[in-house]
Each structure stands twice: as structure tokens, then as C-alpha cells.
């Protein structure tokens, strides 16, 4: 992924704004021409809507235990009135979990948690990776060598195992899982940014700025970075999908989100042994993870195709 991004370059920021707008408009047009990307965007939009309005959509508090409140049983099957469930029975469209809580409400609130995890981890990784990659690419020489070899060392570890190792040191919990995933993802972004910076810093407009007396800080952060950041959008979008998957896997193992937080991976892990007796408790969190990851992947692929002129040309042929 990162390799294909390295060749990507965006026209420099120039005073002729209409040209820049045209490029953006062109990319936008290319993006909206792709059905899969549109589907991804629609799903993601829906997920974001669900996450924002989770409290309004969910019929119950995700942590509310319904023992002595409703006549239900542990891990009760879904009850949907429209599908023939008796009207005198409380409706729980995704059933009841092991702690007598409404599964649908927990899945809905889980959307909020999962999106938060995805955006936060990738956000942290992008910030750290951008700084590291920019400094490395701009400084070059031994600074670049040391930083990139360090990134290579991190990349040499299987990312999930490295995340587990970091959590072992930091301790269990969602916050530490976020840090662990962010650390694991940082080198990817650092490499992408470094490659872009290496390319952009040789451009004429950078040389011109330097000739006009711009300092290193201004050159790097005002001239180079804004023009090297585009590949990050694609890598970041795809990275969110992976981050959500890894966070769910960590929570499944009991290393990430802790009870009673309604996180999909935790929900899967808690009821993994009920796969035969109460499959709905595994199915709904699982399918939620799948849909979310799919949405980010479709969107990421669409963005890549839209922002990469070479792919766009191929597509138009």
C-alpha cells in the first residue's frame, strides 16, 4: 500500500487557485464515478450517524441489566414483533446477552466505540508518523538513516504481536490498546510521508521559497507538508479499517476494552462459547465489525483511485 503511494504527487500549492480547485473537482468527480466508493461512503455516513445518535436510536442503555424489569431469559433469542414474536413479549431485535442486556442497544453503542477507536488510533499514528516522516525526509543523512532504521525495526514485528507486547507492558484496557495500535501503525505513515517529502522538497517552488529566505520550519511545515499529505488520506482511511479490526481482536482476547463497555470485540469474546446455543450474540457484533471494515476499505480504495492520476487514467481507458 505504502509503496504505491510513494509515487503519488499532488500539484504544489500555487497562487492560481482555480487550478487547484479544478484538481480537487477532478478527483471528486473520479471518486463519485465509483459505485463501490459511494457505497462505502454511504455505509460510513450511516455508521457515523448511528454513532452520533446512538443514545436516541438504542431502546435501552447499553449497560442496563433487565433482570426483574422484563420477563426475559439469559441469552434469549431475538424477538421481533413484525416477524411473529408475541406482542406480549418485549421486543429485542438482536436478543439478550449473557448479562440480560439488550444486544441491539449494545451493538448500536458499539458503533460509537469502534469509530472512536479507528479515528483516534489512526489520528495519533498520523500525527506521530507525519512528524517523524517529515523530519526524516527533510533532514536526510544520518538523521534519516537512524529514524528509518528504527521504523524498520518496528515494521519487522508482526503488528498484532507487537501490539500485544506493548499492552503487556502498559497494562490492559482500551486506552492502552489505542496507544499500542497507534505505535504499531506509526511507521507506515512515517514512511509514506517521508517518501512524499523526499519528492516534494526537490520541486522548484520549494527551491524558490528557500531562495527567498524561508527557514527550515516554514519550508517543511508550510511549503512541503501540505503538498505531501495527500497519500496520507488514502493510507489513513485504509488504516482505520485495520485499526478497528486489531482493536476488536485485542478486546476479544480481553486486552482491549474492558466490561461493561459495549465494544464489538469484547462482546464477541464474552459470548464466544455460545456460538451454538446463542449464535445471535456472536453474529451481530461480528457482522458489525465486517460492515465497518468493509466501508472503510471501499472508501479507501475509492480515494486511492480518485487521487492517483495514473490509476485514474487506467480507469478512464
Amino acid at each position, binding site marked *: 500500500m505504502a509503496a504505491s503511494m510513494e509515487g503519488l504527487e499532488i500539484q504544489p500549492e500555487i497562487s492560481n487557485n482555480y487550478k487547484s480547485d479544478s484538481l480537487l473537482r477532478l478527483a471528486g468527480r473520479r471518486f463519485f464515478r465509483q459505485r463501490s466508493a459511494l457505497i462505502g461512503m454511504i455505509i460510513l455516513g450511516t455508521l457515523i450517524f448511528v454513532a452520533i445518535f446512538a443514545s436516541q436510536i438504542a431502546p435501552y442503555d447499553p449497560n442496563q441489566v433487565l433482570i426483574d424489569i422484563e420477563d426475559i431469559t439469559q441469552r434469549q433469542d431475538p424477538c421481533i414483533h413484525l416477524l411473529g414474536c408475541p406482542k406480549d413479549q418485549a421486543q429485542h431485535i438482536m436478543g439478550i446477552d449473557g448479562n440480560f442486556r439488550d444486544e441491539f442497544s449494545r451493538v448500536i453503542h458499539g458503533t460509537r466505540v469502534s469509530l472512536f477507536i479507528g479515528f483516534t488510533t489512526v489520528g495519533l499514528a498520523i500525527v506521530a508518523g507525519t512528524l517523524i516522516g517529515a523530519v526524516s525526509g527533510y533532514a536526510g543523512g544520518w538523521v534519516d538513516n537512524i529514524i528509518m532504521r528504527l521504523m524498520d525495526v518496528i515494521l519487522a514485528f508482526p503488528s498484532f504481536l507487537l501490539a500485544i507486547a506493548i499492552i503487556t507492558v502498559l497494562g490492559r484496557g482500551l486506552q492502552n490498546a489505542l496507544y499500542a495500535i497507534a505505535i504499531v501503525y506509526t511507521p507506515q505513515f512515517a514512511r509514506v510521508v517521508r517518501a512524499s517529502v523526499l519528492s516534494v522538497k526537490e520541486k522548484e517552488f520549494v527551491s524558490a521559497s528557500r531562495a527567498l529566505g524561508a527557514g527550515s520550519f516554514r519550508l517543511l511545515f508550510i511549503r512541503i507538508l501540505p503538498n505531501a499529505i495527500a497519500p496520507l488520506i488514502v493510507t489513513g482511511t485504509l488504516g482505520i479499517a485495520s485499526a478497528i479490526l486489531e482493536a476488536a481482536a485485542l478486546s476479544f482476547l480481553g486486552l482491549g476494552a474492558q466490561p461493561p463497555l459495549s465494544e464489538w470485540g469484547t462482546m464477541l469474546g464474552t459470548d464466544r462459547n*455460545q456460538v451454538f446455543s446463542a449464535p445471535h450474540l456472536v453474529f451481530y457484533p461480528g457482522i458489525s465489525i465486517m460492515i465497518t471494515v468493509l466501508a472503510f476499505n471501499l472508501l479507501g480504495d475509492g480515494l486511492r483511485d480518485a487521487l492517483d492520476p495514473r490509476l485514474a487514467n487506467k480507469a478512464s481507458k
Partner: protein
Amino acid sequence: MRKSTLLKLLTFGLLLSLMLVACGNGDETEAAATTAPDEGDGEEFVGTSVSAESCDYGGKILSIEAVDELTVVFTLCSPDPAFPGKAAFTPFGILPAEFIAATGGTGDILEQPVGTGPYMVSDWVRGESVTYTRFDDYWGDAPAAETVVLRWNAESAARLLELQAGTADMVTLVSKDDFQAIEDDPNLQLIPVPNPNIFYIGFTNTFAPWDNVDVRRAVGMGIDRQRIVDNFYPPGSEVASHFTPCSIPNGCAGDEWYEFDLEAANALLDDAGFPRDENGVRFTTSIYFRDVVRVYLPQAPIVAVEIQTQLLENLGIDAEVVEMESGEFITESGNGRLDGLHLLGWGADYPHVTNFLDFHFGRIGTQFGDSYPDVYEQLEAGAQIGDEAAAQSIYEAANNAIRELLPMVPIAHGTAADAALASLGGAYTPPFGATQFMYLDPGDDTLVYVQNAEPIGLWCADMTDGESLRPCQQVVETLLEYGQDSGEVHGELATSCTSNDDGSVWTCALRSGVLFHDGSSFDANDVVASWAVGLDMANPSHVGSTGDFFYFGYLWDSFINAED
């Protein structure tokens, strides 16, 4: 010269005759020792022993002596009516003295122990299975299956799947949600696990606020235990009225546990100086647990969240649920290093009240912080009385003291079930000890048994977890054994163990004609060696895989030659 030579020969002959006569007219023990060859090589039997210098070391065993080839005498420092029950426990299995010495307490003894049991370990593929082969010279009835394959899987659903697929004959601990499906399946049978047990919430009184008995009492009154049992335990489980189940004599002596009383519980917390803040929270704490399936706690994460919910809703205690790795959890909780509540339980090792109370509330216990003299002094007195009726008043006082001081809150006595193919003959799970593979008849040559986890080691003496004790119990036998359906103790390698009047000296008569898997004969010295290696810390073979020899220290109070 010839005369003097003849005289010498006559003198030598006379002395030899006198020696033989002396041996023949000696006491009965010596006679047995001299006439019975050791290990079949014609040598005289020389009994060995292990002993402490005195009872000052704090342990219960003063000496173990092989008085003849088939008699062992255990001399205790104080009467112990529970001796037979303890001696039947798997860690006290008997191995050949020579084998123990040859291994030095490590190596083969950890993975391929030699015993007298119906099965021999033929192969242990780490991470996969342990394979047993039938021991053809076994002294008892021959096992039905020629080969046994022991496998493991941590997930109950996966174990059940193995059974349904027919790739296993019997599996341990199925989920309570699967009980009905198993009972409805004509190809399967559900096998209740009748092991007496207790699940409790423990406090460590060296951490605030659990150093305040009123706070502990508030939790004791403010948790709806009936709700937990009704909703999270299999049918047949019951709310604990006492720490020890009532099926154990004197377990239920004394007053029953507190009724669920929210008003009183909250008043206690108010008076103890823990008012609610604007969010209704009095203080924060942690609930520590491990995610393993046990008879006393079949759904640990679920019950942990339920207790978390009840603490917040009922008492305003905001608790974080903290899952710990099993080994770390046992170590930390056992040493009293957990600053919050810990969810733990106990399954009976042997059918005596001391197994429940003395381990948890004894003088040297650290699990609940500083031990409680009002409790352990009663327990020390009770442990020396063999007559259950005579000990009742003492255990009443002990149980009432536990109720007053609340080192923990007893929640439930759980039930659980194993499952087997309907075609498996003799399928059972005993109340004490583990299922003996020799009684299971798969109808063909190979029995496949799937348990929760891989054994840590197969030398029972140094093991504590059920997943290790079960596999080594198939290989190594004890002096006594528990019944298949009760806690009644009867002879295994000993035909009997009888005591003197006060229960301080136990004499065990051993079974003759028993062979070990290596072909050597079983005798009293093997008993001494097998006990000495665990009990005596100075024994050169006191090594093991963990080196803890936990049950020797715990059931007999201390080790001989213990390091400071």
C-alpha cells in the same frame, strides 16, 4: 595347623547358625523384613524413614517409617482425623524410590512418571495430546481401553463440538446453555459434576476500605446472591448459607449468612464514612478475576459484570472489572496483594471441613490479609477432634466468627456437568478426585478424553491444578482412594490405614504383589520416598517443575527442613 583351621571353620559355622536362629526368633517386623526380598533380588529389606527432629518445625508429620516391607507408620505431631481423606489425595501418589532418586526430581518424572496405575504414559506431544497405554501387569481389574488419548481445548463450545463430531468420547465442563441440547441429543449423555464447592468474593483487609469490617459487611448484605444463582448458575446450584457446603460434615454449623438487606448495607456505608457523591458513587475499587471455567464459577466474566452492576446500583461502589491471567491471579490473590475484590472459589480436595476452612482461614493464610485469630484458633482446635459431633460446637464458633469478621462473602455452591457419548460405558465424574479412565469403556481400543487445558506437569506431588492432577492420577496411585460416587475413603495401594486411639499415629498395611510400570515391586520404602520428596525440603529430589509441592506444605502445615 589343620586343627586350628578346623577350629576356625567350626567357630564360623557356629556364629552363622546363631545369627540365623536369632533372625528366625526375632520380632515379627524383623522377620518380615528378612524373609521378604527387596525388588526380587534376594536382598534383605531395610526399612527407610523420614522424620523431623521435633514437632517444633510447625508441621503435622513427625515421622514416616517403613517398619517392614508392607507396613508404613505415620506419626503425627497432633491428632488428625482427616488423615485418610488427605492421604487419598492425588499429590500423595506413590512412585518407585529408585526412580525418584534416579531422576533427581526433574526430567522424566515430570513428563513420564512411573507409577502403579492402570495406564502408563507413552507419549506427551506438547500442545497436542498425552497418550497412555494400558499397563498389563496392573494389580486390579484391567481397563477397558487399551489406549487413551488425552487432549485439551479451552473453549467449552469447541469441546462440545468434538463430542458431537464423535472425535471425543468424553469432555469436561460444558456450558450450562448446552445442558438442554445435550440432554435432548440421544447420542450424548450429560454427567453432573458433584464436587462440593464454594464461590466467594474475597477482601484483603490490609487495603482500605476493606480494612473496615463494616464496609465488608455492607458488601456481604448488599449483594443479591439469590439473583446471581438464579440467573447465572445451572439448575441445582444454591446460594451459600456458609462457606463450606452442607454436604461436608459440620460445614453448615453456626448461623446462616446475612439476608440481602440494602437499607442496612447502605446505612453501614454511610456510618463508615463513605457518603455518595453527586453521581451516587461512594468510592471506586476493582473486581479481579480470571476467565477460567470452574464448577464453582462457570461464567466468570459474566458474573464479574453482574457483581459490578450490583455494587454500583445497590451500594454506589464503582468497580472496574479486571481480568487477570490465571496463574498471576492465583499468586496475587493467594498472597493478599489484590487491593480490590477478588472472585475466587474452591472445589473440595477431600471430604472434610478442614479442606475448606483451614486452607482459607488458617493462621498462616495471607489471602485475606491479616489472618483472624478468632477464626483460626477455633479451626486449630477443631482439626484435632475426630468425632464430628464433638467438633460441632467448635465449627459453629468458627463459622460464626467468619460471619462476623467477613474475610469474604460466600455466594454460591455451583453445579456443573461433563458430557460424553451415549455409547461410552461407565461414564462418570466423582465428587472427589478425577474421573479414572480405567472405568470408561468406549467400546473399542481407544478412549479420547478432552479437558479444559494442557497439564503443566505429570508429577502429581508438585501439581495443584485439576488439569494436571487428572492425567497423573491415571498413572500414579495413592495409599487410599475416594469412592466413585462418594467421599468415602477405601484402600488402594494400602489395604487399610488404621489409627491409634487419638488419631496421632496411622499404620498403613500395604497391598502385596503390586508392580510399578518399570517392573519393580512396590513396598514400604516407596511410600516413604514418595512422601519424603515432597515433605522434606532437604531431600535432593525436592525439585519438581514449580518446586512448590504446595499440597505437602498446605495439608501437613509445613515442610520438614523448611528454609527460613
